[in-house]
C-alpha cells in the first residue's frame, strides 16, 4: 500500500467517526426551538435600543442640543 492510500484511509476513518458523532446528538423539535427564539426576541425587545429607538437625552453618541437663544 502506498503512503497516500494509508493517509486517505485514516482521513476517511476520521470523517466517518466525526459523522457518527454528529449523527448521534440529541435534537429538540423545531417548534420548541422556534418558540424559544421568538420568546427571547419579544421579551428583550424593550431593552433593544436599535429596535426601540434611542431618545437623544439617553444617546451617548448624540450630545443634547444646547438651547437656541432667540
Amino acid at each position, binding site marked *: 500500500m502506498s503512503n497516500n492510500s494509508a493517509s486517505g484511509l485514516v482521513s476517511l476513518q476520521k470523517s466517518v467517526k466525526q459523522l457518527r*458523532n454528529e449523527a448521534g446528538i440529541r435534537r*429538540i423539535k423545531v417548534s420548541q426551538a422556534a418558540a424559544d427564539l421568538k420568546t*427571547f426576541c419579544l421579551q428583550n425587545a424593550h431593552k433593544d435600543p436599535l429596535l426601540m429607538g434611542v431618545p437623544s437625552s439617553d444617546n451617548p*453618541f448624540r450630545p443634547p442640543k444646547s438651547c437656541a437663544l432667540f
Partner: protein
Amino acid sequence: MGEMEQLRKEAESLKDEITAARKAVQDLTLQDHVAGTAVVGRVQLKIRKTLRGHLAKIYALHWGTDSKLCVSASQDGKLIVWDSCTTNKVHAIPLKSSWVMTCSYAPSGNMVACGGLDNMCSIYNLKGKDGNVKVMHELAAHTGYLSCCRFLNDNEIITSSGDCTCVLWDIETGSQKTVFAGHLGDCMSLAVAPDFNTFISGACDYTAKLWDIRDGQCRQTFGGHESDINAIGFFPNGNAVITGSDDASCKLYDLRSDQELITYQDSSIMCGVTSIAPSFSGRLILAGYDDFNCNIWDSLKAERVGVLSGHDNRVSCIGVTPDGMACCTGSWDSFLKIWN
C-alpha cells in the same frame, strides 16, 4: 481498497441519517410559528459619528466590553483604538505587517490582537507601564493567513486561519492548546458563545461548525450555503448561529434542533455578505455587503426592514455594542461610522 469503499458508503449513509434526523424534528417551521407576529416597523438609523483617521481599507473592527472603546484594523498598517463618543484616537498602533485582516479587543480591555497575511496573531498590551503600546506576544504556527481572532480572556485567544484550522492559544507560553481541524476550506470567521464553552467557525467549504472549546471536538456541522461563509455570529441567547455568505444570503441555524431555520435573502441582492451582527434582542440582524450597504433584517420574519447607506466602498466589518446602543460599520472607504 474494499475498506475505503465501505467507509465511503458508511459516510454517505451517515449523512443521510443526519438529514433524516433533522427532518424528523421539523414538526413546524419558524415561518409557521411566527405567522401571527407582525414585522418590525421600518428601522431608520442615523450616522451619529464618523471615525476618520485610517488611510486605507478597513478590514476589521471589534467593540470593547465597555461599549465605548473599539479597535479597528486597516491595511494602512495601523490598529486604532477609538473612543467612539468623542471620536478621539486613544491609541494608534503601528503594525509590523500592514496586511492585517482581523482585530480583537480583550474582554478586560487590557489587550488587543490582530493578524493577517503574516499568518501570526500579534498581541498588544494596552496597559504597559510607560504608556507605550508594545507587542506582547506573537503567536505563530498557522500555515495560512489569520482571518479572525477572539480573546476568551487575557491568557487565551482563539484564531481562525486560511490553513483550514482554528486554534486555541495559551498567550503566555505562545503554545497551541488545541487545534480544531475538520473544515475542508479556509476558515474565514469565528464567534465565541456567550457562555464561553463553545465557538463557531465559518469557512470556504460552505459550512459552519460548532466546536467544544475544552475537548476540541466538532459537535455540529451546518451546511446549506452555496458559497464561502465570510461572517458568523451567535444569536444573543447562545442557541442559534447567524452566518453571512458570498452566495448573497444570511442564514440562521438553530443549535438545539441542529438545522437551518431561516434564510435572509432577496432577489435584488446579488453581492456577497461580508459581515454580520445581531441587535441586543436578536430581533434585528445587521449585515454588511459588497455593494457598499448594510441591510437590516427582521430575524423572525426574514424581511428587510432597513438599510444603512453611508459608505463609498464595501462594508467590510460591522459590530453592535455589547449594550446594544449602537452599531459601527467599517469600510474599504477608510471610515468607520457609528449608527443608532
